[in-house]
């Protein structure tokens, strides 16, 4: 029994890691963007862009590594669009993010028909296979790196200042809009990587709807993690854990219907935020165009 219990725990932890990884990437992207003062509700779309482009390029070149890089680039491009809209045109960031989500989801779905002449899902392409564990590890490295950048480098300090009071940043002789633009591009790159992880990291195809709201969960993880890289990572793992738990438990608790199980991560999150009494404060200038 104890060895079975041990195996169960290993299964649970493994699944937790896999489930968390794409959310970690997107949530880290959310952290950097929001710390600079740009609400990124377009994370979902950026994940979609990354997931699709990774498949496209992996399929064209046969190299999943190139696919991953292309996925990152696609996310960054969408980040650039959001960033450009949010800084130069001072578009309402939530509206722009919504637009990004629609364009990315529609664009990827349409490209499937256009390029592969088959709606719904792409053909199979070469994927990372078991090497996807490297990307799991890199997610944590990214968290560490982002922590280092945000808290220890001049650029990070400036980005954080930008999310609090862009005018002060401007008065210090810096360029808040440029800082925000770069931050959102980076945000998109990370979310794109999260998407690429889903499509050619875990599996080997792109399929419509495959991001399944992970970008939104990542957004919640950003807030849940109090806008810090490790906090967001922890929150992503929280979601990953409860997702994993519900899948592992399904079928073992017969009186609970599958739908109740599927709501588990969300209900757990509700309890968790209720338990986290105290100040959870967004960056002061988050979402406010400068």
């Amino acid at each position, binding site marked *: 029994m104890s060895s079975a219990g041990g195996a169960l725990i290993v*299964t649970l932890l493994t*699944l937790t890691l*896999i*489930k968390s990884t*794409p959310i970690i990437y997107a949530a880290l992207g959310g952290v950097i963007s929001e710390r600079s003062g740009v609400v990124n509700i377009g994370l979902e779309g950026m994940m979609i862009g990354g997931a699709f482009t990774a498949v496209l390029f992996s399929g064209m070149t046969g190299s999943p590594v190139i696919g991953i890089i292309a996925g990152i680039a696609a996310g960054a491009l969408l980040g650039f669009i959001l960033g450009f809209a949010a800084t130069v045109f001072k578009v309402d960031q939530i509206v722009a993010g919504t637009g990004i989500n629609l364009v990315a989801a529609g664009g990827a*779905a349409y490209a*499937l028909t256009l390029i592969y002449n*088959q*709606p*719904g*899902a792409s053909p*199979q392409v070469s994927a990372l*296979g*078991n090497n996807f564990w490297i990307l799991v590890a890199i997610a944590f490295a990214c968290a560490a790196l982002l922590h280092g950048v945000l808290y220890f480098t001049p650029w990070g300090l400036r980005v954080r200042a930008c999310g609090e009071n862009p005018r002060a940043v401007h008065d210090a002789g810096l360029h808040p809009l440029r800082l925000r633009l770069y931050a959102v591009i980076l945000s998109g790159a990370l979310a794109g990587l999260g998407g690429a992880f*889903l499509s050619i990291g*875990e*599996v*080997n*195809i792109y*399929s*419509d*709807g*495959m991001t*399944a709201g992970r970008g939104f969960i990542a957004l919640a993880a950003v807030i849940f993690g109090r806008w810090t890289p490790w906090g967001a990572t922890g929150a992503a793992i929280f979601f990953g854990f409860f997702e994993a738990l519900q*899948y*592992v438990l*399904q*079928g073992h608790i017969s009186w609970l*219907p*599958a*739908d109740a*199980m*599927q709501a588990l991560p969300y209900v757990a999150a509700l309890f968790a935020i209720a338990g986290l009494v105290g100040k959870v404060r967004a960056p002061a200038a988050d979402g406010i165009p400068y």
Partner: protein
Amino acid sequence: VGRHVHPRPGQLTLGMVTDVGGLGDKSFNDSAYNGLLRSRADLDAYIKVLQSKSAADYQPNLTVLSEARFNMIYAIGFLMGDDLQQVAHQFPQQNYAIIDDVVPAPNIISVTFKEEDGSFLAGALAAMVSKTKHVAFIGGMDIPLIRKFEAGYEAGVRQIDPSVKVDVKYAGSFDDVATGKELANLLFNGGADIIYTAAGKVGLGAIDAARTRPQGYYIIGVDNDQDAVAPGKVLTSMVKHVDIAVFDIAKGIQTGHPPHGHVVLGLKDRGISLTDFKYTRSAISSAQLQTLDTLRKAIIAGKITVPYTREALATWKPANL
């Protein structure tokens, strides 16, 4: 880029309204679409597909096609019944067919499938082929249609060997491919060696899980023939021939003898069937094939009544053949 194509006079015109799953669902919408494509190729039909984003779109989509007087309009999906009934009432001269639901009206052909029968065979096969005496099922969402697959499958397993364990998991989605892979790995690691999926694109992830495993782990595909997605890893596919139904209706219209009323397709008329093990023949003994055939005939002959709800499954006893 020219103006869009219109049907030529006298050309057979076929319209189709998808449910919210849309084209690319790797399930009944895709299968129906294949039927249309075949009608276009073989019957020289003009075809048009309208996809729906929500339940509110069904009625406008059906209305648009009705106003354009298509020879036949297919409503694909089990939530379109009420809307179709209303539209069909407004256009009494128009012919309609609905897949997966039954709508009693003179101008509507209802086509339903005995998914549970095919699933029963899938379960029986899984129970016979399994080395670990442990098989599994992955459903998309926990809804009545998918429970038909689940119940039939479990009954099939039980028919062969009640001691074979059946794990059941629901992905909560029909699109989340990655979760399909994770669930399949979870089930494989938990001891199952054959997994039947009824989960749309989630099943693609499950197939990928089998692909990256050594010989002996199988997925049983669903709805369409998925055997070639990962040759040798998809034991068989439980195909629901919406395409054939769609094509047959089109052909009936053309020849002036369309079916009418409620058409139930099952193993007998090959509306439901298992694919023929092109890549996995070596994993199945002839005795097992024999058993499978016996079961198929027994179902057709009514000697086995396959349960299609969990309640029915709970009290269901293997048939004594």
